[in-house]
């Protein structure tokens, strides 16, 4: 007999008036750690709000740990939520906030305080920091406090919405360690983000969501493979745009080129499936003295390209 799925979406659609939040999602996830990857406005937060029961699906049904999440106190006892928004009162101190939320879970005042101190220490909030009012917190400190309240009651399922945003590199490393430790205890986590490398260290299972639909799912390697196959746009500002476009097309380094005249040189936008080969080619022409390049960068976010391509595949355009 297969174990009960942790999350079950059955033809779930959520409409905000005429705006589509999520579109006909059918999904079954076994307990484990998952990364929910998607650009801004993809429907990640809607999906998380459906999971926490804050939103009712317009159509279909949602089951979390075998229960309907809507107004389900029993489920909330087993679930931890770190939202992407603030959601904290600025006039009280971080420690008190975590203590209150633990008391709502049913901890006694003394237990809640002990537990809150432990968890805030775990996320790197020292005594001075946790006893200050939240209004004086940096973005990173707020993130840490939110994470502390989410894990403090030891939920079976942890839902994190952009948990690493606003953290400095050291903070990211610390939080990643905390979450790795958490996952190693066998607990389930869903992490929503739009930055792939942020969660690569935490999980190998990803769900790619865009336009309110789960477009693909797989491991980090499979995502990278997809990224590699997706055409990428490279923008180059140089002295001879037309010449560069002709050479790249002739050598098969680019599939399409667009040249526009700019005040500081020609701007060439090249569409390529092999960005590294194109870079090597451009470097060679610079070395030979044929070309002067003022700027070279990707014209779009690679993940966004991936999502755009996946959307085209779903629409049957590719």
């Amino acid at each position: 007999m297969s174990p009960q799925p942790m999350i079950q979406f059955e033809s779930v659609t959520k409409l905000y008036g005429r705006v589509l939040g999520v579109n006909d999602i059918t999904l079954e996830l076994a307990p484990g750690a998952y990364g929910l990857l998607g650009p801004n406005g993809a429907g990640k937060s809607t999906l998380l709000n459906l999971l926490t029961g804050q939103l009712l699906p317009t159509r279909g049904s949602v089951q979390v740990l075998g229960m309907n999440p809507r107004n389900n106190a029993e489920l909330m006892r087993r679930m931890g939520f770190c939202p992407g928004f603030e959601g904290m009162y600025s006039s009280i101190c971080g420690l008190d906030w975590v203590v209150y939320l633990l008391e709502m879970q049913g901890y006694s005042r003394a237990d809640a305080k002990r537990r809150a101190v432990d968890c805030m220490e775990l996320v790197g909030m020292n005594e001075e920091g946790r006893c200050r009012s939240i209004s004086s917190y940096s973005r990173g400190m707020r993130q840490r406090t939110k994470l502390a309240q989410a894990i403090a009651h030891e939920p079976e399922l942890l839902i994190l919405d952009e948990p690493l945003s606003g953290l400095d590199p050291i903070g990211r490393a610390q939080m990643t360690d905390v979450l790795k430790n958490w996952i190693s205890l066998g607990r389930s986590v869903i992490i929503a983000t739009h930055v792939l490398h942020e969660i690569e260290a935490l999980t190998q299972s990803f769900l790619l969501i865009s336009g309110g639909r789960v477009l693909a799912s797989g491991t980090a390697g499979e995502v990278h493979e997809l990224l590699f196959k997706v055409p990428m746009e490279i923008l180059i500002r140089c002295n001879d745009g037309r010449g560069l476009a002709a050479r790249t097309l002739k050598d098969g380094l680019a599939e399409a080129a667009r040249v526009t005249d700019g005040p500081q040189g020609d701007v060439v936008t090249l569409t390529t499936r092999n960005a590294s080969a194109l870079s090597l080619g451009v470097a060679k022409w610079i070395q030979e003295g044929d070309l002067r390049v003022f700027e070279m960068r990707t014209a779009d976010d690679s993940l966004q390209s991936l999502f755009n391509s996946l959307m085209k595949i779903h629409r049957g355009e590719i």
Partner: protein
Amino acid sequence: MPIHNLGYREWKGELESSSTRWSVVAEIGIRRAWHSSWLRRMMFFAWVPGVIMGFMIFLFEQSEKNDGAAQDILRDLTRVMMQPGEREQAREHGADNLANELARAMNWGATPAERRHSFWSALLLNLFRRSQPLILIPMIGIIAPPLISQDFRSRAFLMYFSRPLTTVQYILGKAATIILYLSMITLLPAMTLFFVGVLLSPDISVLSMTWDLPFRIFFVSAIIVIPCTFLSLMLSSLTTESRYASFSWFSIWIFGFLTYSVVNQYSTPGNFSIMQCVSLFHVFSDVAGWMLDPRLAVAGIETQLAMLGMLTAVSIAVIYRRVSAPMQV
């Protein structure tokens, strides 16, 4: 050397029952509201009328012991506060200010027990009808508007409801915040006044004559505090901007008062018009009068009580609807 694991530590303990979870919501509200220096000042001034009335009880008890000086002070105090001709009016139509009620109290009742009951009731009536509403209105104007609206704006409600907290517990916690502060300026001073009176009385037998007053105080407090609490919470739940809720709260009182004054001018004295119910100030005043002093003839009391009940029910329904579907705000 043993290596200590400083990583995540599991908690092993017993969780408490869910029945007191609303009190955590209330505690957050109470602590946040107390940060307002205006609230603290108001709380201080809210007790001044109670202290003055406590002093008057002292004077009354002294006058009952045939203390000439106390009798003179009480009589002078009453006379100073009297408007010309009001004593007669008070006798005919019941009382409508402190001086009248004092005069009435002093004229009514042949025995000390009757006089005491009348006098204490008159003082309590004044506390509930005049002094406390003037503090209650701005106090709620400070406490209530941000209670739910700010949760909607900051989306703190998502944090609340990601806990095992029901909608009813959340509403109860928010209401308890207001009820506690209002009780501190209505129920508590009135009860204190009563016990001060008992302590200043010649013997404990006074309790047998005034035993009904604590119950009356409790019911009057409840009938004022509960509708005010839910009305103000409803206004808070209807917006994400607490200033709009504040504005609506004060508007209800001001426009109600003005409407009552206009309607009253054109209505026959003694006749009750349903339009008079628009002024909460007068409705509470009438209901408090009716509950504290059954001898007062209050026109349209059933209608006013029904109106308060309906107001509370509608407010609770609206709050429940808004809090159950916060994402639609």
